[in-house]
């Protein structure tokens, strides 16, 4: 690729004859700070002690800055505070090398500034809507002498007002619409030059001899690469951003580089649009820029388009012949810059100038020192696929990470479209399979009939007492749920297990009843306080009708009914109750819907999934009782003394 033929000569463009007078006129149309008597101070903007405040929760950028600080062997991190109005004040954790450091986050910029007077730089990641206000606020603090504005799309009127105030206060604005810039060994602005691997590859951890200024952030990183290969690396680089009115312009930074003894040669990546490059020409003419300058203006192609093209940079639109890239390239060459034929050969031009300076002894080639190793961020290493670790948790029922929430692999829109309902949802999230419609409807029926059983039962009672004590919803509902167990609402699992065991053993219902009596045990799922064989529980009747008509087979339910036939002969109220019918029906569901193995079915019963239906259903009622007590504004409950038997423990 290095030995390809030279490009065809660029087509001839009508270039205006650039006389000195025309040059002065061009510069007048956009006077620089120098002409207005507001030159940037010649001292450097950044040192290895520069401290900055970052506006915005830019964790990745800030960690990148701290990694850069570490690899440059800075004594302390460059970021001292973060401003972010959308959280309460807190501390955010970062790494400086291997050590953890805490950087305070403030919701109020003024407080951050006051508490961190050592900060002289603000890196402002505010969006285009709030960048103006935050920048103007920052300029109220004299400690800040440099503000970098990252946002693209700030209206020009606002940028102009920022520039006006910045010029008056002597504040340097880098941007807007920029990635920032970098000064090896000293300071990295935000995301500039990316991560450690790039910092190492382009040797940005130690200063070289070449300083550059460009509009483009992406190209500035390409320059970092080119300068590390064709010269001894970057001394300082700034991207002034793509907007029409950059806060500081090419000439502002080039003058700084002129005054910096560590900078031996300079690179300018200019662009079509505006007349900033002519200030550079004039400065060379007047002897204010003397260091070797390699320059190239991009956008030579705009001459060739038959209609106006707006390039990605807002400022990049040629308004007059002078603003064309070819005109600027010609002018820069005429006034003493080294201008290559194309961007392609910029590297070679840099190399030539560099070698000349080395041979003249103006650049001493320093020995390379190995930089310290910076540990890689865990998350990044995982993304690159170079490390792995066992996960702390396994979860198989629901995945919320993708485009759409999915229950057991079924996307939520499908759950809704196919109207799987609450029953279908339970089927997916509890049992990890799509049970047939009759089973899902059964779940819903159970939830409905178990939803409540009046205020007198222990669950409801607890909830009501807690609500009346002024407690919140969660406390009141949980208080009621905590009474669920063997004696209340928890009989379903036991009933299921008992009926199953008896049925599976082939025990005759009469024997089952006798055995229970002999052991003195109540039969779970049998018995009701009021309802009897002659005064049936309508809930049980409905459930029984549903099961017997819809189940493919219902032998355990049959067994339970046979048990009921026997127990009701003894006492009419020993009917199969709701717990019993639900338990038996669920066993038959597991065993005969043909989607569970025997083992799976038994496991679900053993794990308590039938009880879970009761818990879920009854929660509806408990919430109802909570709301009811609150609605009725019931006061704290105190149980009447006359309803308590007080006894001394000695009696």
């Amino acid at each position, binding site marked *: *690729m290095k030995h390809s033929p030279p490009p065809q000569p660029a087509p001839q463009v009508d270039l205006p004859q650039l006389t000195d007078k025309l040059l002065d006129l061009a510069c007048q149309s956009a006077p620089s700070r120098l002409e*207005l008597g507001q030159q940037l101070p010649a001292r450097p903007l950044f040192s290895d002690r520069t401290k900055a405040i970052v506006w915005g929760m830019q964790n990745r950028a800030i960690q990148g800055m701290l990694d850069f600080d570490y690899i440059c062997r800075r004594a302390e991190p460059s970021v001292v505070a973060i401003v972010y109005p959308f959280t309460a004040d807190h501390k955010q954790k970062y790494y400086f090398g291997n050590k953890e450091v805490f950087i305070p986050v403030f919701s109020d910029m003024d407080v951050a500034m006051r508490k961190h007077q050592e900060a002289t730089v603000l890196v402002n990641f505010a969006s285009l809507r709030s960048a103006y206000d935050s920048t103007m606020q920052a300029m109220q603090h004299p400690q800040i002498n440099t503000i970098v504005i990252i946002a693209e799309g700030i209206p*020009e009127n606002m940028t102009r007002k920022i520039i006006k105030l910045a010029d008056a206060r002597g504040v340097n604005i880098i941007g807007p619409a920029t990635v920032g810039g970098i000064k090896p060994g000293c300071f990295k602005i935000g995301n*500039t030059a990316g991560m450690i691997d790039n910092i190492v590859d382009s040797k940005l951890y130690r200063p070289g001899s070449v300083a550059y200024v460009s509009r483009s952030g992406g190209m500035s990183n*390409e320059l970092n690469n080119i300068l590390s290969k064709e010269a001894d690396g970057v001394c300082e680089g700034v991207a002034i951003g793509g907007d029409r009115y950059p806060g500081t312009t090419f000439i502002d930074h080039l003058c700084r580089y002129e005054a910096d003894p560590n900078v031996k040669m300079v690179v300018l990546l200019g662009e079509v649009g505006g007349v900033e490059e002519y200030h550079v020409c004039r400065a060379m003419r007047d002897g204010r820029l003397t260091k070797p300058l390699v320059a190239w203006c991009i956008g030579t*192609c705009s001459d060739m388009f038959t209609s*106006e093209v*707006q*390039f*990605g940079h807002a400022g990049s639109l040629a308004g007059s012949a002078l603003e064309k890239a070819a005109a600027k390239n010609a002018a820069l060459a005429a006034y003493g810059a080294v201008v290559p034929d194309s961007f392609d050969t910029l590297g070679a031009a840099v190399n030539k100038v560099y070698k000349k300076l080395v041979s003249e002894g103006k650049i001493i080639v320093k020995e390379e020192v190995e930089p310290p190793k910076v540990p890689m961020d865990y998350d990044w290493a995982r993304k690159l696929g170079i490390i792995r670790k066992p996960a702390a948790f396994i979860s198989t029922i629901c995945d919320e990470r993708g485009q759409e929430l999915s229950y057991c692999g079924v996307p939520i829109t499908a759950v809704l479209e196919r109207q799987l309902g609450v029953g279908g949802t339970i089927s997916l999230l509890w049992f990890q399979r799509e049970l047939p419609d009759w089973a899902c409807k059964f779940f819903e029926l159970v939830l409905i009939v178990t939803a409540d059983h009046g205020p007198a039962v222990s669950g409801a009672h607890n909830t009501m007492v807690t609500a009346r004590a002024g407690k919140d919803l969660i406390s009141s509902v949980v208080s009621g749920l905590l009474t669920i167990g063997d004696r209340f609402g928890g009989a379903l699992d036991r009933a299921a297990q008992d009926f199953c065991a008896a049925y599976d053993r082939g025990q005759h219902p009469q024997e089952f009843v006798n055995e229970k009596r002999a052991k003195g045990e109540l039969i779970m799922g049998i018995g009701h306080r009021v309802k009897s064989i002659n005064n049936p529980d309508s809930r049980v009747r409905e459930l029984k009708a549903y099961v017997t008509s819809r189940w493919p087979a219902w032998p355990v339910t049959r067994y339970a009914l046979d048990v009921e036939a026997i127990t009701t002969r003894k006492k009419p109220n020993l009917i199969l109750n709701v717990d019993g019918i639900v338990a038996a029906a669920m066993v038959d569901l597991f065993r005969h819907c043909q989607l569970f193995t025997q083992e799976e079915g038994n496991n679900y019963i053993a794990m308590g999934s039938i009880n879970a239906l009761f818990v879920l259903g009854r929660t509806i009622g408990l919430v109802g009782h909570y709301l009811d007590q609150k609605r009725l504004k019931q006061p704290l409950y105190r149980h009447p003394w006359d309803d308590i038997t007080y006894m001394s423990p000695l009696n």
Partner: protein
Amino acid sequence: MSSKAIYEATGKDLINRHIAPGTALVPCRFAVFEQDTVWEDELGKNPWLTKEQLVVKPDQLIKRRGKLGLVGVNKTAAEVRRWLSEHSGKEQKVGAASGKLRRFVVEPFVKHDANEEMYLCIQSGRRADTIMFHHQGGVDVGDVDALAIRLDVPVDTFPTGEEIDRVLLKNVKSATTKRILTTFILSLYRVFVDLYFTYMEINPIVITNERLYLLDLAAKLDQTADFICAKNWGEITFPPPFGRDAYPEEAHIADLDAKSGASLKLTVLNKAGRIWTMVAGGGASVVYTDTVCALGGAHELANYGEYSGAPTESQTADYAKTIFSLMCRDRHPKGKVLIIGGGIANFTNVADTFRGIITAIETYKDALLQYNVTIFVRRGGPNYQEGLRQMREVGHRLRIPMYVFGPESNMTAIVRLALGHAPVPPDHRLDYAPHQLPKPEPAVRTALYCTH
């Protein structure tokens, strides 16, 4: 983003709606005629069309319409209708650009003397807005830069009537005219600032019988101010420059751009072109385009565009699919080349964005083969190794001709390969892809520059 031109009709409407009362301005009346406008409907909405003499001209960001003979003056409604039918759909050359005349504006003819025509222009600069005035305006105004008087209004200040009178209008003889102009300019400047105009040129501005008329207006608004001015602007269009049709695909990308912190831009230059680009970065995209043009590919270049600022995988996929859908519409005997280029990213995750491009490639795999597309890739940045590896893999798997390079290669070297100026290096050759691409055809016309 940035300063964008608006239709003359839009500019006049904004001034009508927002200028303070108390000036001598006669509110601009105009009727807009486009391809599907029904003549009778417009007559119904604007009864003055049949009652007064009229002026008709295209409203498509064309400069110096008078000199191009595109203005019909002092016509009856019937004459205007005939003029429209003669000009509508006509191919028109303006400088190097060529396009169809599609949109026209018809206004009342204002009878006046030539010496009542003046020139007024306001434009924004870095530290000030400059108001330019020349007491002799009109079609033959001459070199305004040399002739006009300028008044600089520093940012965040407002000119005084006294300054305008003394400095700007010093060559105006009539005291009445001065007074009218001063009041108007002050009110107009208020509109200029409040509505985030960046440019307004009124030539000629006419004062006759103590009433003020804007006979011609060219204006630009700062489109980034949309979030502040949307209500005041109302529904406005930012038309493409003359000679280039607005494509729905461009609007789609502009919409993606507006909804995201990332930057996504697309301009279609020549939809039948062979050379397509998808470059990361505002600067790099320009450099690639420079290189294509320098190597003779300007007239075969199909698009300009860029993506940057860490777009998500799905945004990048959307962007790529839009380009592919445009690219795979017109066949070319020499096939097409797609340059997926970029510098070394600062913080865009290259693997993520490339995964988006790969999704698009998978979707369009048949079309890419059918339309004989060869893809060239060059990129660096965070996780670039994985990004490039996945690109190579999809190329091999789908047998789509694709040559992939990393930051070890010169940034624009792939342009040479794509434009056939160099053969594909031996270690990159593929048996199912060409080793040397065809060179661009020499241009039919030699002069391709537009002078502004």
